[in-house]
């Protein structure tokens, strides 16, 4: 099988999986809905209850699962390619927590009430700040571990900032709310959240998909890429902005959901030629499918209060992270 037809099959398979997850996300939940009722609502003549459940409750949740999952998977793949580091992903590098801190500041100081755009904008600013700091700390180093350590330091700093905000919170319930929100969830979201996430994910995604070829060239290191005609400054700018805007927008609506960007590229890479560009689009699809499936999981697993999505992805992701960390001597 030639590599281009293998790629077509991979993308087709992932698209089908994503579509199945999306339909499943509409049908499954605390009140399962039969396919027939879904079809009726889609055709415009369903019963009122089904309409409310599907369109007001589950449709935004499903769309957010797809959008957030796609951008997390894509940014993980792009960061891994850019940093030549299979451990890179937004949460491990502290970007998600930076965005979380920005969002908490927006919520805690009441800025989010001033203008609806304040929440995503501050989350994006938080993500940019942590990426900038990461670049200063470890940008020159080609060692994966330096980068991961710098990311952990930044994530801890952002978490400390969040804790400080919670300490200062005048309202214990607000603190509780922020705490829960930070664990990451798609519960109880509306189209309002979809409209926040959608433009961020589209802009961030476009920026991240633009540089596949430069990421391939970076397989040969920064000088190797330069001598293959890559303008590293521009690539870096697009990648930092794309990650910050995409992940910032995603964190603003879903909290900090970690490890999707780590797991998904590793799952799809064996089905590609392993070049960074070949992993990008499959990681976006795979991320959308994985997060949507995980979100179905938290709804159907019978627990007294619904599991948090970020908790589930952490349980899935940490073993993958540790496996690769232990295999450090032969990285990829």
């Amino acid at each position: 099988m030639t590599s281009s037809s293998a790629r077509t099959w991979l993308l087709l398979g992932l698209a089908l999986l994503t579509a199945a997850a999306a339909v499943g996300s509409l049908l499954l939940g605390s009140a399962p809905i039969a396919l027939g009722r879904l079809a009726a609502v889609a055709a415009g003549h369903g019963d009122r209850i089904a309409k409310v459940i599907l369109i007001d409750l589950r449709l935004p949740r499903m769309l957010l699962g797809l959008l957030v999952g796609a951008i997390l998977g894509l940014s993980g793949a792009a960061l891994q390619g850019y940093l030549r580091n299979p451990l890179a992903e937004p949460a491990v590098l502290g970007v998600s927590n930076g965005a979380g801190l920005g969002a908490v500041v927006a919520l805690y100081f009441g800025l989010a009430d001033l203008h609806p755009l304040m929440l995503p904008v501050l989350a994006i600013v938080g993500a940019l700040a942590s990426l900038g700091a990461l670049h200063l700390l470890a940008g020159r180093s080609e060692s994966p571990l330096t980068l991961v350590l710098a990311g952990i330091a930044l994530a801890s700093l952002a978490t400390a900032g969040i804790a400080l905000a919670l300490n200062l919170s005048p309202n214990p319930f607000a603190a509780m709310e922020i705490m829960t929100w930070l664990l990451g969830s798609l519960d109880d979201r509306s189209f309002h959240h979809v409209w926040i996430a959608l433009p961020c994910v589209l802009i961030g995604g476009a920026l991240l998909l633009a540089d596949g070829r430069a990421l391939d060239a970076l397989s040969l290191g920064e000088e190797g890429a330069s001598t293959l005609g890559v303008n590293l400054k521009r690539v870096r700018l697009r990648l930092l902005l794309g990650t910050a805007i995409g992940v910032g927008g995603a964190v603003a609506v879903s909290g900090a959901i970690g490890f999707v960007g780590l797991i998904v590229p590793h799952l799809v890479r064996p089905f590609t030629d392993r070049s960074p560009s070949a992993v990008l689009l499959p990681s976006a699809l795979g991320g959308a499918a994985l997060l949507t499936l995980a979100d179905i999981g938290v709804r159907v697993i019978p627990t007294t209060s619904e599991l948090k999505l970020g908790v589930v992805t952490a349980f899935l992701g940490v073993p993958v992270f540790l496996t690769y960390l232990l295999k450090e001597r032969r990285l990829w």
Partner: protein
Amino acid sequence: MVTIRAEALTVSLGDQPVLHGIDAQFEPGGMIGVIGPNGAGKSTLARALLGLAPTQSGSVTIDGVPVASMARGALARQVAYLPQGQTLHWPLSVERLVGLGRLPHLAPFSRLAPADAAAIERAMAKTDVTAFRTRAATELSGGERARVMLARALAVEAPALIADEPLAALDPGHQIEVMELLAAEARAGALIVVILHDLTMAARHCDRLLLLDRGRIAADGPPAAVLDERRLAEVYGIRAAIDLSGSKPLIVPLSRKP
């Protein structure tokens, strides 16, 4: 065909001056070897010619155009580069890796054209790596990987190639093969600049040698004019048996200068 020219080129890395006022012209038609002891500035010169090292003063021009003003893409189509000990960060297949050499020629979002595929085949055939085209380049032996990296640089099919120690990690047979290959490229009209440590190889295969010593050009000319006992003693601090009389020159380092 291109000509690269360095004029009064001074380069510092950090606050350490590495090259002092280098004047040299690199013309196609014959292989140019750059030799000199460790730390003489050979690799820095190569990087400066490619616009990778920040120039303190002076300039590098390609056919009269300053390298500093050229877009990276245009420069990449003019000069290919094989760095020393090139690392590969992902386990790409040999074919895919060699194909990276075509990146400077691709328009945005286009696929490899048949002309690109042909260039990849040519480069793999020249370096004798076609047999393991589907293997992961990270799983090859050091010598095989060095040839694959050379194939990657040749696949650019740029009019100029700068190779930094392409013989490291190669067995004698493949060393000769690589030098003959580069010499053939030079005869075909390419500008080939190759950094070498092996003085016999340099004397046998290069048409011109540039001897660097502590950031300055100690000698520049045909091998017979550059390689003499006094100079090797001065620059390398060695005594050597030198026989440049026949068609197969021989330079054997014997001892450190007392």
